[in-house]
């Protein structure tokens, strides 16, 4: 069994307890305007092109089996995305690493081996693996098998999910999961659809399932100025969390940033939120206070 992996990132310290390794999968059911991992949205391999690294040598065009790249001497190569199959031939010859293959097929065992190396640091810090993406719930067989292996090896397991996956997928993955990072983007289903492409009922229902499962859950809310930071949505979110249960619910605010911008350019995709500026932690403090006032344990990720 294999899956397309865009990155395996060691020493990740912001995605669950302790020192973790985050495995980024490819493919997501949502298409959020603020997504900082645009290379993880499509379930197929893609080629990124970082033009500042390109020396215009033209090698990429000569090896492309689909004739998707046109390179004129002295000019940057242009990729015809319609023709590109993401085969990776161009990135294999690109000496400058200007052409990057997003999505490398890896088996469960290969990913496990890569993750296992940091066991020393997981044990000392209470860390482990975090499967992110992309959406882990879109690949429940791969993810549950990977996490099962990790648990067997005494590695703490975590998934980072948008919640947008089938209930059965969620139930397939949960038994092998110690900790869930669960995103809440907007409480209004209509607005959720506008900003992410999909309504939120499935997500809210899954949120109830994970809470009632008794697993450790940290909700996360990407705080996007003008999109979901209005008092009405914050109150609605707080009410929803409050309604979820007996034990105190925690939410972490993820501040909007533009670090992903370069990746959009590399994919020849427009950056949807051009013009919006990144948030500073201080700007999120009012929102934090609103959650706290409702008895929700709210932190700001930094």
């Amino acid at each position: 069994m294999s899956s397309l992996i865009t990155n395996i990132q060691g020493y990740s310290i912001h995605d669950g307890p302790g020192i973790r390794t985050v495995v980024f999968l490819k493919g997501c059911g949502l298409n959020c305007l603020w997504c900082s991992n645009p290379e993880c949205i499509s379930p197929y391999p893609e080629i990124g092109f970082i033009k500042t690294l390109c020396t215009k040598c033209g090698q990429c065009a000569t090896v492309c089996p689909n004739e998707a790249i046109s390179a004129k001497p002295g000019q940057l190569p242009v990729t015809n995305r319609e023709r590109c199959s993401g085969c990776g031939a161009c990135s294999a010859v690109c000496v400058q690493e200007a052409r990057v293959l997003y999505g490398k097929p890896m088996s469960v065992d290969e990913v496990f081996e890569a993750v296992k190396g940091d066991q020393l640091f997981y044990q000392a810090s209470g860390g482990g693996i975090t499967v992110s993406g992309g959406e882990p719930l879109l690949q429940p067989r791969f993810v549950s098998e990977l996490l099962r292996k990790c648990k067997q090896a005494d590695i703490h397991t975590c998934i980072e999910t948008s919640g947008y996956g089938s209930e059965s997928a969620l139930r397939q993955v949960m038994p092998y999961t110690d900790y869930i990072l669960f995103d809440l983007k907007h409480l209004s289903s209509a607005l959720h659809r506008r900003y992410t492409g999909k309504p939120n009922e499935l997500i809210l229902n899954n949120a109830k399932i994970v809470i009632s499962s008794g697993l450790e859950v940290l909700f996360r809310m990407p705080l996007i100025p003008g999109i979901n930071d209005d008092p009405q949505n914050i109150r609605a979110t707080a009410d929803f969390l409050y309604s979820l249960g007996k034990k105190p619910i925690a939410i972490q605010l993820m501040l909007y940033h533009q670090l992903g911008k370069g990746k959009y350019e590399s994919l020849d995709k427009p950056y949807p939120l051009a013009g919006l500026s990144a948030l500073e932690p201080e700007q999120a403090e009012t929102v934090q206070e609103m959650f706290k006032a409702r008895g929700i344990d709210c932190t700001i990720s930094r």
Partner: protein
Amino acid sequence: MITKSKIDETLLKRIDNLELSDRLFDLKHAMFSAQRKVSVDRIKLAMESWMETEGEDIEIRRAKLFKRILEEVPIAIYNFDIIVGRETEHLVGAPLFLDQVGDAIPGIWDGTDGLDLTQEEREIVKECSRFFAGKTAPDHVKKAWHSLVGTWAEDVTEAKGSDPTPDSGYFPGITCRALWEKILSKGMRGMIAEAQAGIQRFQEMKETDINKYYFWQAAIIVCQAMIDYAKRYAKLAVSLAEKEPDPARKKELYEIAEICEWVPENPARTFHEALQCMNFIIVGRGLEAMYPVLIGRMDQYLRPYFEQDIRDGRITLERAAELVGNAITLWGMKTVVQVGKTQKQTHQFSYSINSINISGVDRKGNDASNELSYLILHMIGLLRLSSPTVLFSWHSQTPRWLLLKALETNYLTKGGIPLFENNEHVVATFVKDGTPVEVAREWYGQGCVTPILPTKIDHNGSEGKGAVNVAFILDLTLHRGVSQITGKKIGIDTGDPCSFKSFEELYEAFKKQYSYVVNRVLWLGTVAQSVEPQYLRFPFNSCIAGPQCMEKGQDIMITDETHSYGISDRAIVDTADSLLAIKKLVFDERKLTMPELLQAIDNNFEGERGEKIRQMCLNAPKFGNDIDEADYMVRDVGEFSASVIYAYQNPFGQPCKVSREGLSWHYFGGLGVGALPNGRKAKEPLNDGSISPMRGMDKLGPTGVLRSALKAGFKESYASCLNQKFSGSAMQSAESREKLAVLIETFFKNGGQHIQFNLVDTAELLDAKAHPEKHRDLVVRVGGFSAYFVMLSPEIQDDIIYRSEHGC
């Protein structure tokens, strides 16, 4: 023995709340924006004195030279000083040491020195250069080497095969901290009494070694000179007080005068006196010789004074903080003018090598962390100083609260301060080499990561034995002993690599070549140690820093069994990666023939074929990615190198130690090394640190690098140097610092030796490069040595920017 008292948590909280006082703000601001000024006063006085004492004994001559300087060098007190004393009258000034290094300021004769000197001052420098040329210790060392091996030493220097040498910023001398406990408890008066006792004994016992007698005479001269120098400040403070309109400052100046009247002549009684005494001693050392400012474990020496004054209410915490801040700023910003050829590769002025240790254990092995350790870290964080180097001596009992404070300081200084070193590894290594464990526990940092003992006089970094360039020796091996860069034959002919039938044959040739070069470097270094004391003595440094000099009546420059020797074998990772690439490409996988590979290297990977071969070389397994064969190759080269070095014994039967430090040497060292089979092009920088992966070649992030470093081990070395670069988010929050603390602890518990973190973002670096004036206090570390970013040369800046972009 102080029994371990409970840590006063309220005091720690109060320290956390301390802010930068106006005085310290002014001091820091003034010193940062001050024009760094070369001062010719010291060297002029030295020359005059040397002329007058012609024909006298050398120990006495050097003592009189010191006295003359201390009597007449201009002094100043600035209105924000509460700790007084600088080597020059300038806010940030650098004296010259032509009497120690000879005619060694590059460009002084053709006017390209770039120093901010008036015509008159430049004439003085020239006159002194002319006067001392040919007379100094390095000049005589060069002559000795010449008669032994012809131009070999110069050829090695030219090819950057070893460092430092008389041509590359070498200064004869030793590196060890002052005997702080003794100085603070006895004062100069106590030292004089010891010298007098020596003289008396000499007379009574009718001893015959006149050198001892002269030494004690010299000791009295220099200690008295130190006392009188402090009294000059006392007098100046009084005269300033008389004119001072502000009553608070007036009172302060009178206090300063009283303190300077008392220390360093007498034992320090208060925290303020202790710090003032230390500063005078440091200034005195800095006027006698171009020396590192080694402070050592100040949270131990000063602890009794601090605790007693705080407990008895003799001082407020705020005042104690100001004193610490003032002293550390002065020590950190002590500036020297670079001599020799290194200056073209790095920078013309540099901060003197200096180091403060924090934490560690006491002689019984108990944790030595205390509130003063915490305060020192806090003040360095507030002042955002890049210098002095702060060595955090971690051990398994180091409290988490202090480690977290250290990481907060690291975050505030934006990197490298403090560096973290594994105390347990250092102690174990000293014990393995025969040091009693109680003594081993008292080690301190030499300036970067190299540990030394207070019972020894250390010669690390001097006499051409600071470093040997391992990658350079591989270069020689691949070219039958000829340097690719200079074209000169420096090594021996170890055979034509194209005729080698196996990797083992090549590796053997490298080992032969290595033994030849290293043994010659060590031999010449040891010869230098016998030459130097004939032409250079340091009576003041002997009194205050030589553990047994006073008792023996012997100058610190004269070597014996109390002297310790060490060398840094650098660029091991480059060498191991290159050897492995040859093994894989030529012998295992046969993708290339040796002639093909050598041709590509000799052409610096030029042309299409060359570039293709370079890619194959780059794709060979590299250290830093948890790949067994790459990591074990590093371990193997390291162990071999150490075995050669340890086997070299000095005339007193002491083995040479290995300590793998970094500094910014990898730029300098890289200039002498042709293209390498690891894919590095000719003259490009070598790897920084000593156990850092090849630039841009570690793909797993910091934990992957750490795993590789643990496998490579370097257990045979007293220290190694691993630099890690992080973006701000890795250290900004308390939570992320907790995780970093775990990373450090895990690394060290499993045998790691050293790690330090730089923290910068690319945008800031680029802006700092374009607008240095706005980023004067931006701190970065270059391989174990700290510097302000704006002081670095453009190519070093580019490298840091590169690392920032590709960082974690």
